[in-house]
């Protein structure tokens, strides 16, 4: 349960995720999706209730667990005044990535920014900056991906990359994906959850769910 002032942003939301599962979180604006994600990312501390990641209770052992997490929000979380490479060097050091320069080259190549690696991020387009954010995300090979509407802000190339990443993560890593797109939720997730005004109103596995039917239910739930 997470409270901001007198307003309860999240109330009685239970999330359980196993390795390899992908949870899609849907809901209208202000439903608490971002709050939930940030709490899972250990950026926020729940006012009541417990959080445990990979068996470690948080926030007490949050330090141990952060190395396993990859968080991507609306912002790519990179410094505009540093070059792409310098940004990744910083994160590589913060996460303790071994053989950093090879790994940096590899992710830059994957996101298609190797040629621009010595340019300041300020000169990048929004799509390119967001792609750098993807590179940052994958740099340390996290076992749990926490993504907040990652497709927004990505250019076409970036979206393809992200979908490939999610495909590869299926079965291997845990993913929590906050999104507005119902169809994507059904297509890419193993479980879907709908939040409304801080509460869970739907929580089901996606296997066998019809996207159109889900959309209809979703519209009704959040009306």
């Amino acid at each position, binding site marked *: 349960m997470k*409270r*901001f*002032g*007198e307003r309860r942003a999240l109330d009685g939301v239970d999330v359980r995720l196993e390795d390899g599962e992908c949870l899609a979180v849907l809901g209208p604006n202000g439903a608490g999706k971002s709050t939930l994600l940030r709490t899972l990312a250990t950026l926020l501390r729940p*006012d009541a209730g417990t959080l445990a990641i990979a068996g470690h209770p948080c926030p007490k052992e949050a330090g141990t667990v952060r190395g396993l997490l990859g968080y991507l929000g609306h912002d790519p979380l990179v410094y505009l005044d540093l070059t792409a490479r310098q940004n990744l060097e910083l994160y590589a050091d913060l996460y303790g990535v071994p053989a950093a320069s090879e790994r940096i080259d590899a992710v830059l190549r994957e996101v298609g920014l190797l040629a621009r690696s010595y340019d300041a991020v300020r000169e990048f387009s929004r799509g390119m900056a967001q792609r750098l954010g993807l590179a940052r995300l994958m740099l340390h090979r996290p076992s749990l991906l926490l993504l907040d509407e990652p497709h927004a802000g990505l250019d076409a190339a970036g979206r393809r990359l992200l979908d490939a990443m999610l495909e590869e993560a299926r079965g291997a890593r845990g993913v929590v994906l906050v999104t507005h797109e119902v169809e994507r939720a059904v297509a890419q997730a193993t479980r879907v959850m709908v939040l409304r005004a801080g509460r869970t109103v739907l929580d089901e596995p996606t296997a066998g769910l019809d996207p159109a039917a889900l959309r209809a239910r979703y519209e009704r739930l959040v009306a």
Partner: protein
Amino acid sequence: MTEARSTRVPAVVGTLSAALTVLAACGVFLVAPEDTDQGIIQKIFYFHVSIAIASLVAFALAGVAGALYLRTRDEKHDELSSAAVGVGLGLAVLVVLTGSIWARASWGTWWVWNDPRLVTFLIVLLLYGAYFMLRSSADGERRMRYSAIYAIAGFASVPLSFYSVRVAESFVHPVVFTQNGADMPGSMLVWYVVAQVAVLGIALTALLLQLSQRRAEKALMRIKLRLQAEP
């Protein structure tokens, strides 16, 4: 119920303190021997020092309550901490005022810079005045958390400020201060203790009143919100 009880405690403490204060005032001005050097104005010192100590006790309490808040995240500790800072600040203002009166009577000027205690309390006014500015710049949980941190830091600043002024003064005026310390004759000491207890009692009353006022405000807010929520 709790409402009736919570007004009774401050009332009792308040009455006791008021009585003690009257007793102390009588004792100090009528019974205690007059100081040969400074005369009657020295009597203000009984209160000046007791108020200063009460103020420091309040700030210490605020620091401890702040630490407790950080440990437990219980709102009550934040209430106590901010109320204590408020009381301490009010007392500090009195310290500065009584100190100024004493300076005027002793030396003819409205302020002296060579008294480390007095100067420290001026710094204290700034330190804890900033506390309230910090509080008004943040909301909710963050306000309580940051106030707690600052209450702790502020309480570390107080002795540091005192010693820096004292060290500076000791080099400029290398004369040992003759302040009214524990080398008071017994007849004076008794009335000093009475005055100190009285002032502490008044401070406690003020604290309790502040707390119950805050709680009443919060309860009112909660009722208001509940009424608004119901369609």
